[in-house]
């Protein structure tokens, strides 16, 4: 109603925009809970608590969206709410098609929310879905009038009753939109403010409402009494008010115990705390020599402990549980198995396992791919399973746990496994593998990570366009992780993803270039070797090449790249970098130490400089640059590639 006032006045002030944006942000959480609730509905069809929760969610969404003025959204939610109401009352049971429709509804709302984020005035086509939901309300089968006549009398009358109920609900919400006011109050708006707005409307517009606005306004102030009043007059609105009551009551019992904090603030805290800990260590090391007051000494010791504790706490602020991501997989498995007509039982273990937010965000897509693959490529259809003597229902298990400073996610299926022979054949067909090469079965199945190898015979809607596992592998490796595949023909496959818990710390080696120290991430380093100056073939101005176990590789001097002097010696330390299809050697002056490196953001003025990943503070307090060798030498590598091929050929010819 508030919005109606504003809109009729013909302006959209900042306050309203703020409300809308706030709503869109909050609705994400709402949708997430809705999705998992819908999915639970599939197995717990008559769980009254669950249905209540779903109804509350829908009602909440409807009310708030109407309150902030997203009319299409509230219109659509309203229809869905009617459907849920039917389920709640027990006049309908949650069939597969109803759950599917509800999920479709959730997807649509999500799509709308995303779009509205870009354009607050966006409009959508909601009629198709609305019709579909209404069809479900009418028993799913009744689509046209002809069908209606064939339906039994009972159903027809029921439909009529339902239609009436629907009308009631409609009139209720459009006339007062008490829900709107409630949700405004729920969303934490100052009651005084609402009061004011309503009062404003009172004086300025008395159009849309049938009731005296002041009445409502009193309602707000004395909500508990209103409930009683409602109960005492079961005239028109017999069912609908029941729900709002619950909503209000439940909400007040469960205060929101989390707040949204900007990630940058948390990073700032971590920064400062890290430095505090260092300072504290300095003081603590000198306290016995220089501080002779016992209490002071004791306090310094205590302080150290507290600092460490606070630091641990603040580090944990970036950690989030995997649960929402796993929840998403439930949906993926459901949709995929429905589409392929396979029966799948998904088992989730370790949902509470926590991981750094950045890692979590980038984990979603690869995981979707793997899970989808497991259902599509891994599991067989029910009849094939039965022939093989397995339970017709396939099992997919997602298991997450911590192992040292790593997060491990294991996706296991008990499907048909990967046939190494099929992979070999495919690889030879696609020219990935030489027909004469003899490789072990284990090596063969690892080929599925090779770009351009899809084992599925035909391209399906679900997966299998030839890109896939290689992208998954690259994604995981970009996160500094590893992916392992184990598979046994006929028994199933297991994919193990190993990820660092946080991206803020990497394993690196410290090198010296002239007088400066630089950090190279260990993940890029394939091996470290020594070569003699005679081993180097030099093409002045273009590239140097060296031979490593028969393979000709380009060789670059990091000092040259960093604008430093290159020492002429007879013995060079070479770091071999292997990333994707790029392999090359980098000559460094010296390798100092391998250690865990805390990545610090660079100042904004030099951020994103080519080849620099970030910086790290060394033990002496001096900053050092973390170099991305791949980025640093990428262009040089492309240049030298021609020479490499030429030499390679001539060696083989010789």
């Amino acid at each position: 109603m508030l919005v109606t006032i504003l809109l009729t006045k013909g302006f959209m002030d900042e306050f309203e925009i703020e409300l809308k944006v706030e709503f869109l942000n909050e609705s994400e959480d709402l949708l997430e809970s809705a999705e998992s609730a819908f999915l639970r509905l599939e197995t717990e069809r008559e769980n009254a608590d669950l249905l209540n929760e779903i109804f509350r969610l829908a009602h909440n969404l409807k009310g708030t969206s109407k309150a902030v003025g997203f009319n299409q959204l509230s219109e659509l939610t309203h229809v869905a709410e009617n459907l849920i109401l039917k389920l709640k009352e027990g006049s309908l049971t949650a069939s597969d098609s109803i759950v599917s429709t509800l999920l479709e509804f959730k997807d649509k709302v999500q799509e709308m929310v995303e779009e509205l984020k870009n354009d607050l005035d966006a409009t959508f086509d909601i009629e198709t879905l609305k019709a579909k939901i209404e069809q479900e309300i009418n028993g799913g089968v009744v689509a046209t009038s002809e069908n209606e006549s064939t339906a039994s009398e009972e159903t027809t009358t029921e439909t009529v009753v339902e239609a009436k109920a629907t009308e009631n609900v409609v009139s209720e919400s459009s006339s007062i939109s008490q829900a709107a006011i409630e949700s405004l109050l729920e969303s934490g708006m100052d009651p005084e403010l609402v009061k004011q707005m309503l009062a404003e409307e009172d004086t300025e517009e008395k159009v849309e409402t049938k009731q005296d606005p002041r009445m409502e306004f009193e309602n707000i102030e004395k909500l508990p009494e209103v409930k009683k009043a409602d109960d005492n007059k079961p005239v028109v609105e017999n069912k609908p008010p029941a729900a709002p009551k619950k909503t209000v009551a439940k909400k007040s019992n469960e205060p929101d115990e989390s707040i949204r904090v900007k990630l940058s603030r948390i990073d700032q805290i971590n920064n400062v705390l890290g430095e505090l800990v260092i300072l504290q260590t300095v003081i603590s090391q000198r306290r016995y020599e220089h501080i002779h007051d016992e209490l002071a000494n004791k306090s310094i010791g205590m302080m150290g402990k507290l600092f460490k504790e606070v630091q641990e706490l603040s580090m944990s602020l970036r950690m989030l549980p995997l649960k929402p991501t796993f929840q998403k997989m439930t949906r993926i498995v459901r949709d995929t198995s429905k589409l392929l007509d396979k029966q799948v039982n998904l088992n989730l273990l370790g949902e509470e396992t926590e991981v750094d937010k950045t890692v979590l965000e980038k984990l979603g897509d690869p995981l979707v791919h793997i899970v989808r693959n497991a259902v599509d490529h891994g599991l067989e259809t029910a009849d094939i399973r039965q022939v093989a003597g397995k339970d017709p229902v396939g099992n997919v298990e997602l298991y997450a746990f911590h192992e040292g400073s790593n997060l491990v996610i294991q996706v296991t299926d008990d499907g048909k496994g990967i046939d190494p022979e099929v992979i070999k054949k495919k690889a030879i067909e696609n020219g990935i593998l030489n027909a004469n090469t003899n490789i072990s079965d284990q090596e063969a199945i690892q080929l599925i990570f090779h770009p351009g190898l899809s084992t599925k015979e035909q391209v399906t809607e679900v997966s299998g366009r030839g890109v896939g596992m290689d992208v998954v592998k690259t994604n995981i490796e970009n996160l500094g992780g590893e992916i392992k595949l184990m598979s046994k023909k006929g028994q199933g496959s297991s994919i193990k993803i190993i990820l660092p818990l946080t991206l803020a710390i990497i394993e690196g080696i410290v090198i010296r270039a002239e007088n400066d120290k630089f950090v190279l991430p260990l993940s890029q380093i394939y091996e470290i070797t020594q070569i003699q100056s005679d081993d180097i073939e030099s093409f002045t101005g273009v590239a140097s090449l060296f031979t490593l176990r028969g393979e000709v590789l380009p060789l670059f001097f990091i000092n040259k790249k960093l604008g430093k002097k290159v020492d002429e010696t007879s013995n060079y330390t070479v770091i071999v970098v292997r990333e994707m299809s790029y392999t090359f050697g980098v000559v460094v002056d010296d390798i100092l130490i391998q250690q865990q490196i805390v990545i610090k953001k660079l100042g904004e003025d030099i951020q994103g400089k080519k080849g620099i990943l970030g910086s790290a503070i060394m033990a002496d307090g001096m900053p050092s640059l973390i170099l991305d060798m791949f980025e640093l030498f990428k262009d040089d590598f492309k240049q030298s590639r021609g020479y490499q091929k030429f030499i390679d050929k001539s060696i083989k010819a010789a």
Partner: protein
Amino acid sequence: MNNVEPEKKETKERFLQFNLGQESYAIHLLSVKEVIPCPSTTSLPNSPNYYVGIMNLRGQIISIVDLRKKLNITPKDEGLEEAVIIVEIEGIGIGVVVDSINKVLNISHSTISEVPEISSQVNAKYIEGVHKTDDGLTIILDFESILNIKEIKNMQNKAA
């Protein structure tokens, strides 16, 4: 500048005055976060000559720029009494090396002439104004344009 009519109440602003070579310069005190003695820095490969390097300022990595080299001013005495002014403009923190710090000036707007009428070693687009006193001139510098803050912001927006 006596052509300015006596105002109701003169607004005064504070500036930090420092030396580069033989001349006095100043910047708005509000953009100054702190002043520190010259820290040890780590150089950045392939950077322009005025870019001194990066430093660790209590856990934060900050770039240090030599203002004298950037503005082509001959230093007073190499490495004599250098100081670093940490400025923060539009959320970006940068350290600036100067010859020495003088004092905080409390200047009313009427004493700042907008058009630089004097010859200076500094490129005119970097100058925000000139403050005249009996002792001499102080050039008020526009750090935002000297440090290319706008360009940095633009680059970020593009990257984002």
